[in-house]
């Protein structure tokens, strides 16, 4: 049987079980509003689920019951015996049909019309006997054993017990392993122990997976649902799904499946307009429904947005007043945002007509009730004419998180791996560190990234040298990037994260706790909150998709700049993106000839600007090293002040072509240097940046694993193909080299004594000699 269908059957059955008690109670007291509501929700949900599948009878049955109950809810009809019996009969019938669906039988339709007619106001009581008969035939039928089910549903507590049992076994295994090691090797025991250990690892892996499911499972039915709904309603809707890799507790996925379905239905039915309306409003004819899931800290956020007409605040408000939820005075005081949240109140629907799809004022309250149950929250944001965004935040506790264990000051922590883009050692030559005020910046692949030291975040100690640290490059769901410096990175581990005590949780920097294999507890960091506490999270991407223009606009407005004091004592600013690093050099490196000044930095000669004909300071000179990607410049400054963001407008200056304009920073006018003009006037391509090519032996493991990274780090482009021209060729032992090559040849020998006999021969573990030879080759080629 189809997975979806199996889920549908299981879910319907579960709901039936859950409301069984309610039905009996309702029968006893049909005036009980709460019971009525929950029965109503049941038939509503069944009707909704039928939307996925082609079960017209089931749909018409539940629709009939829903309509009748809606009348009762609206007070237009009283719950008399006939109605109660009719509804109960339909619920029974839904149960039977579900059984039939499960065993894949063709659905029988006998008696369905009768059941529906029973609920009709004008129907007569005569239908009852036949209805009973129908029920009997089916109960006889469903008693026959069906095919064996391929999946079973288990209580979650049982799963939890199994999981904690397996965790205990792992700890006991580790303890035993330590004892075995201590008592010395005993082959008779070691073999079976290894086997046991392996099996245990498999079991553990399986148990941890038991609860987890990719969020994909939530997404799968969405395109179909959207297609069917939009076809039915004569609308055109495109779906955009993102973040299907996020893993979530199976239970959580089941819990939010209904809410998500309800929201999507509402979005298409009420949110997105018809193509004609959209054209008239100047929008693209095809509406966009996007769904994004991302893990942020210890929660998963699921965002569902449409670009439809938005919520009608005025109608929501007046409905709420009419329903007695609010007084006019309260309404007048409410903010728009709060007003939007009214859609989660029971009994409010802004739809003018009741349609097949949604709009009976049930749904959104069910959505919120379901989320409340699992400790989740839901918010809605809407802009009239532009669309609506629902943000569901679902807790992640009890889920397995792929984690990275790191250490700071001899203490271990876990970082969710999903955030970690890359791990870089601080000593890597591709990194440049800059200290601005109290903040650290690291430049990596041309991007200037804020750098947080975990030791400092945790108030453990001050980190003096980031080069000694290992950097985790962390990408947040919002797109913000920062580096987190730790002392060591240990390992990848799958961690079962458990909630922390409230007092610890209040620190905000931990998402949970987990036990390592050796049984010691370890804290999982809440990377998102840490970033937020340090002001590293931007709020520009509140909408999941389709807002790129706005993001760019916002980004342009808050362009980061660096403030400095020039040699002439005036404050200026320059685009932060241009600044590669700040250097302090001896004035001996400067060479001035007429109005042309140059400076030698790391063996390269760069144009020096910013002196403005002032004499050089005594001793050291402070420089901003600027780069536009092709050229480099040195800009002499007397002081580097601070980093800032341009918030106000840049007023262009006609008089001075060297500045882009003047902007206000902290109330002070600051001229911003026109980087473009600066490079146009002084820029010079840096010769050393042209990478030389080095050819390595094609099929040699040692060369691939050892040599490759070494040579690359020395600034060479790597090739293994003999066709490519190369500036340097590295060969093993006595391997032949094309005689006519102009390239420098380096021979690698595995015998330490051999190199002496040959030209350019290097012993394979003599790293210094190899680096020296590569450097020598570079110097020769670039002249």
């Amino acid at each position, binding site marked *: 049987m189809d997975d979806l269908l199996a889920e549908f059957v299981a879910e319907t059955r579960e709901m039936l079980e859950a409301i069984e008690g309610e039905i009996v109670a309702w029968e006893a007291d049909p005036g009980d509003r709460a019971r009525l509501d929950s029965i109503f929700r049941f038939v509503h949900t069944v009707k909704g689920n039928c939307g996925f599948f082609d079960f017209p009878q089931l749909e018409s049955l539940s629709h009939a019951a829903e309509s009748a109950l809606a009348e009762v809810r609206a007070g237009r009809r009283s719950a008399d015996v006939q109605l109660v019996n009719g509804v109960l009969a339909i619920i029974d019938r839904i149960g039977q049909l579900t059984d039939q669906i499960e065993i894949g039988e063709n659905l029988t339709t006998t008696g369905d019309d009768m059941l529906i007619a029973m609920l009709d106001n004008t129907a007569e009581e005569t239908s009852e006997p036949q209805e009973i008969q129908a029920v009997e035939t089916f109960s006889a039928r469903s008693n026959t054993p069906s095919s064996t089910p391929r999946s079973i549903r288990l209580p979650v507590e049982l799963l939890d017990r199994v999981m*904690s049992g397996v*965790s*205990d076994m792992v*700890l006991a295994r580790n303890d035993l392993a330590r004892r075995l090691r201590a008592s010395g090797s005993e082959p008779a025991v070691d073999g079976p122990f290894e086997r046991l250990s392996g099996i245990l690892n498999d079991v553990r892996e399986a148990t941890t997976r038991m609860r987890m499911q990719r969020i994909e499972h939530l997404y799968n039915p969405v395109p179909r649902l959207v297609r069917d709904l939009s076809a039915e309603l004569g609308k055109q809707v495109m779906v955009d799904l993102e973040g299907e890799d996020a893993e979530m507790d199976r239970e959580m996925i089941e819990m939010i499946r209904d809410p998500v379905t309800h929201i999507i239905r509402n979005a298409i039915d009420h949110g997105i307009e018809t193509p004609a309306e959209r054209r008239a409003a100047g929008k693209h004819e095809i509406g966009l429904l996007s769904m994004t899931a991302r893990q942020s800290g210890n929660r998963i956020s699921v965002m569902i947005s449409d670009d439809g007409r938005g919520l009608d605040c005025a109608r929501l408000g007046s409905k709420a007043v009419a329903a007695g939820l609010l007084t006019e005075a309260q309404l007048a005081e409410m903010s728009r945002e709060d007003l939007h949240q009214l859609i989660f109140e029971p009994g409010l629907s802004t739809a003018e007509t009741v349609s097949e799809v949604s709009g009976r004022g049930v749904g959104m309250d069910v959505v919120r009730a379901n989320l409340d149950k699992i400790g989740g929250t839901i918010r809605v944001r809407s802009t009239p004419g532009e669309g609506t965004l629902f943000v569901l935040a679902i807790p992640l506790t009890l889920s397995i998180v792929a984690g990275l264990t790191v250490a700071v000051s001899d*203490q*271990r922590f876990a970082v969710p791996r999903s955030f970690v883009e890359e791990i870089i050692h601080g000593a890597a030559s591709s990194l440049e560190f800059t200290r*601005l*005020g*109290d*903040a*650290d*910046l690291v430049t990596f692949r041309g*991007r*200037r*990234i*804020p750098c*947080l030291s975990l030791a*400092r*975040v*945790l*108030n*453990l100690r001050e980190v003096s040298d980031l080069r000694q640290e290992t950097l985790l490059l962390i990408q947040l769901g919002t797109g*913000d*990037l*920062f580096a987190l410096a730790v002392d060591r990175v240990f390992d990848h581990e799958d961690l079962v994260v*458990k*909630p*922390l*005590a*409230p*007092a*610890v949780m*209040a*620190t905000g*920097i*931990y998402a949970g*706790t*987990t*036990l390592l294999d050796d*049984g*010691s*507890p*370890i*804290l999982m960091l809440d990377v998102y909150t840490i970033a937020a*506490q*340090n*002001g*590293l999270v*931007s709020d520009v991407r509140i909408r999941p998709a389709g807002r790129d223009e706005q993001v760019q606009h916002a*980004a342009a407005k*808050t*362009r*980061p700049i660096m403030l400095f004091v020039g040699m002439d004592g005036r404050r200026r600013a320059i685009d*932060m*993106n241009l600044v590669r690093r700040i250097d302090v050099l001896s004035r001996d490196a400067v060479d001035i000839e007429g109005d042309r000044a140059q400076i030698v930095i790391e063996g390269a000669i760069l144009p020096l600007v910013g002196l403005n004909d002032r004499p050089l300071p005594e001793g050291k000179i402070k420089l901003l090293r600027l780069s536009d990607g092709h050229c480099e410049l040195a800009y002499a400054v007397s002081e580097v002040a601070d*980093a*800032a*963001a341009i918030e106000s407008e840049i007023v262009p200056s006609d008089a001075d072509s060297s500045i882009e304009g003047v902007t206000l920073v902290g109330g002070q006018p600051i001229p911003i240097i026109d980087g473009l003009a600066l490079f146009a006037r002084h820029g010079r391509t840096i010769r050393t940046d042209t990478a030389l090519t080095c050819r390595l032996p094609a099929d040699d493991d040692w060369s691939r694993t050892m040599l490759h990274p070494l040579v690359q780090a020395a600034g060479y482009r790597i090739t293994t193909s003999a066709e490519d021209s190369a500036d340097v060729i590295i060969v093993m032992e006595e391997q032949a080299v094309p005689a006519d090559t102009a390239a420098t040849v380096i021979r690698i020998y595995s015998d330490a004594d051999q190199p002496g006999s040959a030209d350019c021969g290097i012993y394979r573990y003599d790293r210094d000699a190899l680096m020296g030879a590569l450097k020598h080759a570079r110097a020769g080629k670039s002249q």
Partner: protein
Amino acid sequence: MNELLVMARIAGKRAAFRAVEIQSVIEIESISPVPRAPDFITGLTAMRSRSLTVVDCRKSLGLSVGAAPGVRAAVVEVEGHLYALQVDQVEDVAEARSAPEPVSGGLGEAWQRVSLGMVETDDGPAVLINVESMIAGPPANPSASKPGTARKPGNKPIGVSA
């Protein structure tokens, strides 16, 4: 009908826990500290593959402490979370000879907050501890928490270059 009490000493004073509230008494082997957590939380430890939040009762009372707490701790569960309450020592299990009664004149502010009153035992009176108040820690009082607890780390927001 007499209630069973677990007798302990906190900062040298006689204290009693309701035995029904104590899951077990453990000897804490190792504690992983929790940086930036309130001072009264010593850290985390593990018991039968569940992690416990270790609370130093003396610090929770806001008392300045000299010596390290005893190795023994009483394990309690509050709202689904397990806590190990560090005391000087766990002495015995005793029967209460009276219902908890308020002490006229009070026990002093710190003790008053965590106490359910005084109970009589065969060995004399003891303060009956309110476990929830004990794990809640001292009220927001700057002298009772680490100076760094509430402070944000020194880094200020910086623009991220695109």
